[in-house]
């Protein structure tokens, strides 16, 4: 049976090649349901979430890895983030209909760069920028790996309304005993279909692709959706608006509403809440009473 919301690491014996398989289910559903973008855009978001989770777990980071494509096209923003705790969140924004879904990502986003930011929580985050090339996110990421002179890496991604899945192969530093192994294994992995990636469990996928190889499959690690927004954080944002701005919004709208862009959580603050935040007198709307 297919394991969901889990990531599996594996090593191919006698080669310096490692791999990872991921299947997102409930965590993907959270992101999928919160987006009002087209199916195409949501499919890209699924690919991006599977990809960042795979990439984050290949790196020893104590923070987050964020993939971002921003442009002026029909899809103008794609953000996917994974943390070292294997939590994910993401969003996709679409401003108008995609005229040609077969166009390249560069045309669809009207952007020419893909940005990957690694934030270890200390100091300036590391940002890798590569040209946005190809017709799929896997192609764009593979170009990113080539461009940034990192370890040779291949990724295969698939998503639909219920799952987002991915497979990653990476060649670690070291001599290949079998000189052809990287080429052979990536060719074999390239035969996987989206349907297989989305529907088969990890053992079945590895068997179908690499049944002539000896593989060490490690225990699964859970992945979950988690947004870092909170009422407390939102309170601090309102404080940063300043009393005057907060008071103006209360007068205009009766309450202050701030929505999280990632999880759509809606935080509402009425005049009493706002007054407590600032802990001093404000010129509140007359129709509001305080405790």
């Amino acid at each position, binding site marked *: 049976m297919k394991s969901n919301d889990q990531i599996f690491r594996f090593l191919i014996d006698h080669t310096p090649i490692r791999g990872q398989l991921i299947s997102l289910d409930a965590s993907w559903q959270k992101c999928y349901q919160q987006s009002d973008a087209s199916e195409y855009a949501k499919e890209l978001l699924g690919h991006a979430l599977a990809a960042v989770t795979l990439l984050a777990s290949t790196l020893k980071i104590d923070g*987050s890895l*964020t993939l*971002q494509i*921003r*442009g*002026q096209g029909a899809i*103008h*923003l794609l*953000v996917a*983030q994974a943390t070292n705790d294997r939590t994910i969140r993401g*969003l996709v*924004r679409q401003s108008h209909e995609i005229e040609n879904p077969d166009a390249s990502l560069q045309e669809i986003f009207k*952007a020419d*760069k893909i*940005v990957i*930011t690694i*934030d270890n929580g200390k100091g*300036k*985050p590391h*940002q890798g*920028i590569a040209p946005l090339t190809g017709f799929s996110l896997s192609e764009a990421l593979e170009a990113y790996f080539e461009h940034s002179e990192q370890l040779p890496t291949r990724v295969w991604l698939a998503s639909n309304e219920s799952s987002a899945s991915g497979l990653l192969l990476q060649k670690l530093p070291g001599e290949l005993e079998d000189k052809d192994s990287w080429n052979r294994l990536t060719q074999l992995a390239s035969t996987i279909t989206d349907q297989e990636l989305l529907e088969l469990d990890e053992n079945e996928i590895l068997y179908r692709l690499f049944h002539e190889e000896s593989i060490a499959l490690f225990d699964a690690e859970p992945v979950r959706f988690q947004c*870092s*927004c909170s009422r407390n*954080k939102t309170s601090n*944002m309102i404080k*940063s*608006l*300043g009393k*005057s*701005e907060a008071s*103006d*919004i209360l007068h205009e709208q009766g309450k202050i*509403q*701030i*929505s*999280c*862009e*990632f999880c759509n959580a809606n935080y509402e603050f009425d005049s009493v809440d706002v007054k407590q935040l600032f802990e001093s007198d404000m010129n509140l709307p007359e129709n509001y009473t305080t405790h």
Partner: protein
Amino acid sequence: MKIKRTTANKIMGQASSQPDSCLLGILNANEQLIKAHTVEEFKQLLIDHPDSILFFNQDPLAREIKSSIVHVDGQQHIEVFQETKGVFGLRAYLQIGKIQTPVTLELSE
């Protein structure tokens, strides 16, 4: 870049109320002004609000905090400038690579 006229007025209002101090923050997707006072606050705002427009004045601290952040390609910026003391204006930029390119700031009603 297009923002509401009322939002532009709010930014100018903030700028005129603190002409000689750091003004830095974001306009979130609902065009609410959220200010930051430290690098950490600013960094967190940009992470939590990827679809936002960044605004800043010409105060040295605002510039220092802003320059300590790695700006994502396509990030929109609004600069509050003051070429004549007490008279404020807004300029819009789009981040393209390492360069902030001036773009037209349109105001909607």
